[in-house]
């Protein structure tokens, strides 16, 4: 009994080493030393469209790997301010782009590349009986929004203000989610009765499991998305090329995912 203990521990160390090696090899392929990595920090709502644009960009630039970090724009801006390595920043609101320009390393080649509208989503069986925006004010409904500061959260609050139901609807708020995709998830799971997200978040992957309620035009907010090269980027030329890709061929992909053309 006592004698097989060291060999058992050796087995654990060996297993860890194998897992480590597997992790180091996975996804690397034939990565050469001249391979460059472009880090793109993008608003969570851009996830699906940017992944497609990134795949095209990699095909056109064979020695380049595009690495995305999707999250709430305020969180991404905070990471850039703190010196996270980033080449391109795409924000769901101009204010967090301004923040990086003023309090961070700065932004080059800034341009607006898309606009977006917001919608109300509910689970398919609509447990909260939501047929119009005003229904979000009905007492007892469980509403989830993105947190204040997250663009989707700020836009949602503006919409509720414009519709004149902010006080009563926010009394129904049960959670401030970290980004807009987390709002989609809570509604998808059926835990919340309703949420306010971008129209583009109702992607083909989830459109059968979500119900969409349009927000009247007079209350809706048009979100403007700016993109730019982070001034501290180590690959400014490549980063600029990615921005051009989004402004050029990427536009068709963004349209397909429901984004509106830039102003």
């Amino acid at each position, binding site marked *: 009994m006592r004698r097989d203990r060291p060999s058992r521990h050796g087995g654990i160390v060996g297993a860890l080493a194998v897992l480590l090696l597997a992790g180091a090899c996975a996804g690397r392929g034939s990565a050469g030393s001249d391979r460059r990595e472009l880090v793109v920090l993008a608003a969570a709502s851009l996830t699906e469209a940017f992944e497609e644009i990134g795949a095209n960009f990699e095909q056109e630039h064979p020695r380049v790997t595009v690495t995305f970090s999707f999250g709430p724009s305020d969180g991404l801006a*905070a990471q850039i301010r703190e010196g996270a390595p980033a080449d391109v920043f795409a924000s769901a609101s101009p204010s967090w782009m301004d923040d990086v320009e003023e309090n961070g390393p700065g932004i080059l080649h800034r341009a607006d590349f898309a606009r977006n509208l917001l919608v109300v989503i509910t689970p398919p069986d609509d447990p909260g009986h939501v047929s119009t925006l005003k229904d979000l004010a009905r007492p007892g409904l469980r509403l989830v929004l993105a947190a204040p*500061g997250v663009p989707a959260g700020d836009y949602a609050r503006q919409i509720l203000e414009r519709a004149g139901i902010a006080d009563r609807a926010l009394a129904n708020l049960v*959670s401030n*989610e970290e980004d807009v995709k987390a709002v989609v998830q809570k509604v998808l799971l059926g835990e919340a009765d309703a949420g306010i997200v971008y129209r583009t978040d109702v992607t083909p992957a989830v459109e059968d499991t979500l119900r969409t309620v349009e927000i009247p035009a007079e209350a809706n907010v048009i979100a403007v998305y700016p993109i730019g090269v982070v001034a501290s980027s180590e690959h400014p030329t490549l980063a600029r090329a990615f921005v051009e890709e989004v402004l050029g061929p990427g536009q068709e992909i963004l349209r397909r995912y429901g984004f509106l053309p830039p102003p």
Partner: protein
Amino acid sequence: MKPRPPFGLAAAAALGATFVLLPGVGLLSRIPWDRLPALLASPLVADATRISLLVAGGAAILAGLLGLPLAWLLARARFPGRALVRSLVVLPMVLPPVVAGIGLLAAFGRRGLLGGPLRALGVELPFTTAAAVLAAAFVAFPLFVLPVEAGIRSLDPRLEDAAATMGASRWYALRRVVLPLLIPSLSSGLILAWARALGEFGATIMFAGNLRGRTQTLPLAAFEVSQTDPAAGIAISAVLVALSVLVLIALRGRLFR
């Protein structure tokens, strides 16, 4: 006296200690001392502190109530599958907290396994303080069970027999002989569970959501605020560091025995 360690070992050990200490030092270096009192007195921090103390306390008690009989059984009883049960009890310790949150939703969520029966009783857990307690109790559970099981195992069963031969009832022996001897391991378990519950983030944000005054604990507040107001995030982190140091003082090396 112990022999002086070789220089190489001392240097490597210093490296390890630095690695563990540096984030704390970094936090301290960033604390905005002039704004600290105002930040700590803000309603957001006050709410988060209240919720955190409520959630961590509730979670430690819940883990204790649910964990004590199980710890007893694991320490004393022989039954088939005991080793398996013992391994599964540790599961929340190795499970990524976000996965724990998804699991809690699948079990206690509106559409979870118990969602229907719970709703029949008029209970909807997600997004409530009770959900935050449940999430924290889940991840803290093994930290209560393991030290308590070890404590019960180290009790000499003959003490109970002796008490019985002297005419003590089972209940009397438990109350006057066994429980006093278990107090050190029970308090270790409760403190460890409390500390783990205090730091809980992933399962809470998945299962209980994030709403100020209801489910927003100190870690959730630190996460939300640090993106828009870094100084406030640091101040909340300082509160958590202070509470953690208090835990270490309360344990006073009991961890290492």
